[in-house]
């Protein structure tokens, strides 16, 4: 490999293929991430509530759900959603892209539910006791006292979940689904300039995650200031 050519090659690749990377790769990566995190948060909230409900049977099965998802590789889950489930559930008629989005969303829900549960349980028990002692119902206490404080713990962690998910969508390239890693496969394969294509993809991932992680960090600091007492 002629290292001196890397710089010029990158420039050349970029000029020729920037649309593949940006318009297709980045767009699909963001689309997958947004779908996975948005529905992951919705589903994760339900899972968290179920995990804290009063019925032992429900708590048990939700516990199994969370353990199975967190205890198996995401790639294995993607295989199941891509190859097995469409055959088992043909009536759903989802596109391969949507099957993968669904897998990521289910995966995200398990992590998000634990984030939410931890955020709620981190709120001091004395807050609940004070609210209940004033005559607030369990529901009012949750909505007016516990959740507003839990959000401070939860939001920064959800930001991190978004960043994690953004990177994990690269696994969609296993099925050639048009995300940023697929762009690398396309461009690298067509030009045989694999290293250069990887650098371009890597820099783009960094450009996406670095500002996000800075935003999350700033947010965390603000939240920490808000609760200090």
């Amino acid at each position: 490999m002629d290292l001196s050519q890397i710089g010029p090659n990158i420039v050349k690749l970029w000029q020729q293929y920037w649309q593949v990377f940006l318009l297709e790769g980045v767009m699909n990566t963001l689309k997958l991430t947004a779908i996975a995190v948005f529905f992951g948060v919705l589903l994760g909230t339900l899972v968290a509530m179920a995990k804290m409900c009063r019925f032992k049977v429900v708590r048990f099965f939700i516990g199994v759900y969370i353990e199975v998802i967190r205890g198996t590789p995401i790639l294995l889950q993607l295989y199941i959603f891509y190859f097995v489930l469409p055959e088992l559930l043909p009536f759903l008629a989802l596109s391969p892209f949507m099957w993968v989005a669904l897998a990521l969303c289910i995966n995200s829900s398990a992590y998000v539910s634990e984030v939410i549960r931890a955020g709620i349980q981190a709120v001091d028990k004395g807050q609940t006791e004070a609210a209940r002692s004033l005559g607030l119902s369990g529901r009012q206490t949750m909505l007016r006292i516990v959740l507003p404080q839990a959000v401070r713990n939860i939001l920064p962690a959800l930001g991190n979940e978004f960043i994690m998910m953004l990177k994990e969508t690269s696994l969609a390239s296993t099925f050639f689904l048009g995300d940023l890693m697929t762009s690398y496969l396309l461009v690298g394969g067509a030009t045989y300039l694999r290293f250069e294509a990887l650098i371009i993809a890597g820099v783009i991932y960094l450009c996406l995650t670095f500002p996000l992680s800075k935003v999350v960090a700033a947010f965390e600091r603000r939240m920490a200031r808000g609760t200090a007492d």
Partner: protein
Amino acid sequence: MEQRTELIKTVDLHKSFGKLQVLKGVSETIHAGEVVSVIGPSGGGKSTFLRCLNMLETPEQGQIFFEGVEITGRKVDIDLHRQKMGMVFQHFNVFPHLSVKKNITLAPILVKGMSEAEANKKAMELLERVGLADKAEVMPGKLSGGQKQRLAIVRALAMEPDVMLFDEPTSALDPEMVGEVLEVIKGLVETGMTSVIVTHEMGFAREVSDRVLFMAEGVIMESGAPEELFSAPKNPRLQDFLAKVL
């Protein structure tokens, strides 16, 4: 003896945490207008007894009657009765995400359906009373421990309770702030507010109480007027306890 209304009555309360038996049969009656202090060694069941009175702890045996209603009964709407029992905690438990004023107005508006204007007016009166009127719009994080506890007291008062329960209200305070909080409690009991006060401040208990309960090992070992109990303790556990703390 004058006719007195029974406000809270407990019958043979038992409570365990795991294998640890904390209350081993506590029967006691608090009358309207009475100021009762509960003293005793840590782990003797004082706080648990107090927390049972508004059902923050559920006793596994025994009954609690509040204003004639058995609140340990199965079909009781405990939220309704808690509105009439104010509670002040050792660690203040003010709501950090609400301003000082909103800490006070939250429950009257939400639970009693009071109008915001009325609740605000009342909150300002109460804040005035404890010298915190200038802090109304401040977040509680900016308050000192003593100020937080004064806020917690008026937050409970805003519900116009029939009884106030104090769970070691000065134990978490820096020494220089104990006085200001005790002053507020003293002012309150002088208005005739029925109060049950779990405390380690013996001087205070002696000064403000109509009656003092000495709790140890999960039972009330001695009960009586403060002069008797402090000057002529009969129970050997109490004699031992007073010798150590006084």
